[in-house]
């Protein structure tokens, strides 16, 4: 099934099996719904799949309040660029409640949001801001790359006792893959997954970057380079052990993500690897992230901004000493 169907199935089963679960957000109920919530209000009623006003701050705030009272709300922020509007509720209430109240309250919400990059909608409908939420203690940050992971991780997020930011990617929506339909299926948060084994270089990624990394790995294979693709799946908790194990073996790493490269998730990953594997790397950790520019609308320009298999291959070649490191920090 497609990623969109897999996410839909996770929501569907959560609603079916646990009455504490409800969904709220803009345009998530039928007949308007078109994303992963499609069909669910018809099945479970508009009390459990609730259209809201355009009020991102109150959507998340309301989810927090309900979560404090034992519900498992799944709030949708339609597009990740809008998450700034809800940022205060996320960072100052959801992330900190458990700590600030010494464990007497907590906000086990899931905030689902979607990255629109790469489909021509321009600068304010395209940002990947997961790095923001990695930086705020108390939140978990999840970005699936396959339908299977999407279903398994969303299920875990909904039933996790901590607030989760669950980042979906519109370009992955139609992507297909095998998905266990068993409602008991879930994937633990904090476990990276080797999407392709290899021995010469590790491509560390998450979300859509994994698809580009796999594409790059295929191209590299033709050149006799064996690339391992490690899918982090969650950025918090971050599976440092898996990264260190893989890169310790391959001695080369390229981090790939659709988020802006500068001060993005890859910076933390590179900082960890250079410390944990000091003296054991054959090349510096390379990063391939979005260029430092507001996203342009025209496809011909936009395609220059996000990681592509080609840019990843170039970065890998730099780590192999096959290309000058001066080809640019932006991969």
């Amino acid at each position, binding site marked *: 099934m497609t990623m969109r169907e897999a996410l839909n199935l996770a929501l569907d089963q959560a609603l079916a099996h646990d009455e504490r679960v409800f969904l709220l957000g*803009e*345009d998530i*109920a039928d*007949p*308007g*719904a078109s994303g992963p919530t499609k069909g669910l209000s018809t099945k479970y009623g508009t009390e459990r799949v609730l*259209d*809201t*006003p*355009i*009020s*991102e*701050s*109150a959507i998340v705030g309301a989810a927090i309040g309900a979560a404090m009272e034992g519900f498992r709300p799944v709030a949708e922020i339609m597009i990740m*660029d*809008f998450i700034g*509007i809800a940022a205060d509720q996320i960072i100052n209430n959801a992330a900190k409640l458990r700590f600030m109240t010494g464990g007497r309250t907590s906000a086990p919400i899931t905030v689902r949001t979607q990255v629109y990059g790469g489909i*021509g*909608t*321009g*600068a*304010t*409908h395209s940002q990947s801001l997961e790095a923001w939420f990695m930086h705020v203690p108390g939140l978990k940050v999840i970005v699936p790359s396959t339908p299977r992971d999407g279903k398994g991780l969303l299920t875990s997020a909904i039933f996790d006792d901590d607030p989760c930011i669950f980042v979906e990617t519109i370009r992955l929506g139609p992507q297909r893959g095998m998905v266990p339909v068993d409602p008991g299926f879930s994937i633990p948060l904090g476990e990276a997954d080797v999407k392709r084994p290899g021995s010469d270089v590790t491509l560390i990624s998450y979300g859509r970057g994994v698809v580009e990394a796999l594409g790059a790995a295929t191209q590299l294979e033709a050149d006799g380079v064996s690339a391992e693709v490690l899918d982090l799946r969650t950025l918090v908790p971050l599976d440092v052990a898996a990264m260190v194990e893989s890169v310790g073996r391959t001695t080369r790493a390229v981090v790939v993500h659709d988020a802006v490269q*500068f001060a993005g998730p890859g910076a933390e990953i590179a900082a960890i690897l250079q410390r944990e594997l000091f003296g054991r790397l054959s090349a510096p950790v390379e990063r391939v992230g979005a*260029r*430092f*520019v*507001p996203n*342009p*609308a*025209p*496809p*011909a*320009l936009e395609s*220059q*901004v996000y990681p592509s298999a080609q840019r990843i291959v170039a970065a890998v070649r730099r780590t192999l000493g096959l290309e000058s490191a001066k080809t*640019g*920090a*932006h991969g």
Partner: protein
Amino acid sequence: MTADRTVGVSPEVQRRLYELMTLMKAADDRLSKGIASGELQCVYWPPRGQEAIAAAMGVCLRRDDQLVTNYRGLHDLIGKGVPLVEIYGEMLGRQTGSSRGKGGTMHIANPECGVMLSTGIVGAGPPVAVGLAMAAQRKGLDRVTVASFGDGATNTGSFHEAANMAALWDLPLVLLCQNNQYAEMTPTEHTMKISQVAHRAGGYGLPGVRVDGNDPLAVVAALTEAVDRGRSGGGPTLLECVTFRFRGHYFGDPMAYIPPERLAAALEADPIPRFRSRLRLAGICSEADLDEIEAAAVTAVEEALTAVLTAPGALVDELDRDVYADPRNCPA
């Protein structure tokens, strides 16, 4: 509070209103046709049905009056005088675009015409409009700023903060709500309990007015009052214009969420044929006049589109420009 309709609108202005409305409609029709056929590729949020409001802006605002609109701004932009080649050019990513093609449909500005901002973030426009109105007030200019937004936008905290500030500081601002009865796929009655957006005005201490947004003369009357108030230091107005979007939220929207009767009734109230018959009945325009106006609109649109389609696409080196004033500020 209801607008006083007794303000006279000259035959010339009425004719001009119709010219604007037909131009807006022609521009929408052509774009819609092109996207539907695959001839044109762009994202588009059609304002078809809301032309009376934007046309009223076209006749009530001066060139130096300013506008903040949004993604559904085709009609507003035309009303405010932005050349069609710039609008189409931007939507289609060409160098003739208002931003040389790199901003896209949602982000069209033309400061020379007073269009300062189009925003893709619902509710993000009114605060900026507050700042523009502050600037005019500080400079002692008698111009007004119009913030144009939808019904759904009035549920955002951003709208609230802006409306409160505008009232507090007596800013020359018109908060113009184009209430098209839906926000994306959700009808307004599912997102607010009040029966009129205009009732929100009382929470800020500014006048709230509701008019038939499909009647250009009603909008002109109310907008004239609001603009005069702003210009003369009387502060802001919340003006709600009730209308409908005939093509749904985005181009291609199947509109399954609109009850057929509701859509039919809305189409029945299409401002364009309605105003057309009015002009004829009032003896302002003959059938031939009206046909000519419509034909001229279609011609203007075709010309603009041809110019755009023969123009080159946005340059890739645009990526190195305008991130900062000085490109050397970008990290390597």
